[in-house]
């Protein structure tokens, strides 16, 4: 019976120490959480500033001024736009692998045929290369 006080006192000591440690740990972590939250908020604010700057730098008016100054680009003339079926396809182009849709094949191991060396098989057309024009289908891009 007389040990009860002693035991209680010891338990108290242990619990207090444990609790102190726990609280200390919690504080440390809260500190870290707060710092991270601050950092996130700061980063978000920075992103907003950068987005605003990007919007300022990519204003259509500014882009046009830069384009007029440094690029030799003009608005697209209607005659430059053709749809795919208007293009005169040469036969070798139609058969040539370069213009055929790339075949998506899962790697299945042994019986996988080596990919055809597309570039080598296309006859060099040189000056007859098709012009690089934007190709629209009517009503596309809506």
């Amino acid at each position, binding site marked *: 019976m007389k040990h009860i006080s002693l035991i209680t006192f010891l338990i108290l000591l242990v619990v207090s120490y444990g*609790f102190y440690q*726990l*609280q200390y740990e*919690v*504080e440390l972590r*809260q500190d870290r959480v*707060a710092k991270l*939250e*601050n950092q996130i*908020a*700061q980063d*978000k*604010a920075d992103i*907003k*500033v950068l*987005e*605003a700057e*990007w*919007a*300022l730098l*990519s*204003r*259509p*008016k500014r882009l*046009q001024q830069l384009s007029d100054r440094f690029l030799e680009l003009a*608005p*697209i*003339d*209607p*005659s430059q*736009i053709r*749809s795919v079926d208007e293009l005169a396809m040469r036969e070798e182009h139609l058969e040539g692998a370069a213009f055929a849709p790339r075949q998506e094949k899962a790697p299945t191991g042994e019986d996988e045929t080596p990919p055809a060396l597309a570039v080598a098989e296309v006859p060099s057309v040189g000056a007859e290369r098709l012009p690089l024009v*934007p190709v*629209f*289908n*009517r*009503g*596309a*891009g*809506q």
Partner: protein
Amino acid sequence: MRTITAQDTPIAPGRTLRSVRSRIIFTVMLFGLAFAGLSVRVVDLGLSAEASAWSAARSGAADMLPARADIVDRNGTLLATDLKTISISANPQKVQHSGEAAQQLAQVLGGVDPAVLERRLSSTSSFAWIKRKVTPEEQHAVNQLGIPGITFRDEIQRLYPQGSLTAHVVGYNSIDNEGLSGLERAFDEELRDRAADNEGPLRLALDMRVQHAMHEELGAAMRQFNAAGAAGIVMDARTSQVVALVSLPDFDPNDPGSAAADRQYMNRASQGVYEMGSTFKTYTMALALEHGVASMDDAYDATHPIQISRFTIRDDHPKARWLNLPEIFMYSSNIGTARIVADAGNGLQKDFMQTLGLLNRPDFELPETGTPMVPENWRNVQSMTVSYGYGIAVSGLQVANSIAALVNGGTLHRPTLLLNPDARDDISRQVISAETSEQVQALMRLVVEKGTGRNADAPGYLVGGKTGTAEKSTYGGYNRDALVTSFVAAFPIDDPQYVVFVMLDEPKGNESTYGFAGAGWTAAPIVRGLVPRIAPLLGVAPSKDDSHPMTRELVRMITPEVRS
């Protein structure tokens, strides 16, 4: 002193001992419970309560951001955003040498008057603004001065990266971030709620690239013809979504106080109402064709001007003969149009105008949306003048929206600036038949191929449209020298995807137009310049056809001009 003896207690010793022990145990348990409760609470406080105290103490400006949601266009281009900024304030009671401090501050801060500053700094209050919303450089410079009593406060600034390009659509805020005009005002609460609930930006139907092209073409025309103002709208013909809305002159919403004149704040595209002139003939044609008043080959006597009460209705390009419907439209004959509407009757005409939404203030997001001016009495005279666009004043927005309905197969939509408007607000309804709509397309193409709108013909894009030249009404009459010229167009006219409306306020003719200031000379060329620029951006492919199939039939109905 009295000693307690066994004789004093009346209870038997054995019973006493038991009773005392039970009391002690009871007390111990009570205290035990209380301490257990306290311990739990202490642990609880240490672990959780402190966390909330933490976050309450740590509320910087970074958390305030943003007070209002961003506004973006259909491609996500930023039109309005909240940025953190610094404002400089002072506690005048702590500032020691107010005169010297004011001098130093005025040197590093732009736009601050040292005398005003000194007065503020020597006041007896404990708070005074020095300058609000400064740049980081200014903040650094003031910090370097090291004047005691000066403090920096985090504030929010609304930035409009597109500047004047969006002035009349997005609008602007007060210095305390309350919406004062445009969408900022219309969606003041919504923008706050969105920011609070983290719902992302307000997405508009506008396309900044198209907006820029319109802004530039209108500006060029305004300078060329020395006009007082200009307005332009590009609208999706099938949904009535506004892709571009420009009003000139404009102002910089980042510095709204900078506008020199009130007229810069006026939104001429949706707020200003004007007598539009001949563009209204499109409505008269649609009315006649839709209600069987006349068919394409019906002819009307346009030989002589019409005398009705004190008015004389004349033609600007008199042919002095009988004209059929396509001719009336392409030569823009006032006499012919007036005769058609006389056949239709004024009741039918008024109902038709009402159906097209021309007689009421349109349901549109902008607070700056004008209410049309309509005749008080709709008698024969008014009916005739309205048939060619006089005696009624509407906004460009109303013209664009109703023309969209006439050419898109006949469906009228609610005009909107939002990309995803609330579906409940949809008021779409069929206003004319698809057949009539096709006839209107053919007539509008005819005007551009053979009539008054030839200057609007953008090769490859099959523009159809109608010119409108109106004299401005002045006290007691009309001013021949003050015109409002407009052109309303749709392209490609055989399957209209976009409607374009452009308007010039008081353009003056010059050498290039042989002195003419009419819509065919001033407004129509804007469309020719604009359409080839915006069509590729909007994904409209050039037409293979060079005419509307029905227009070819109409062309055959036209009596060839005899050159004199």
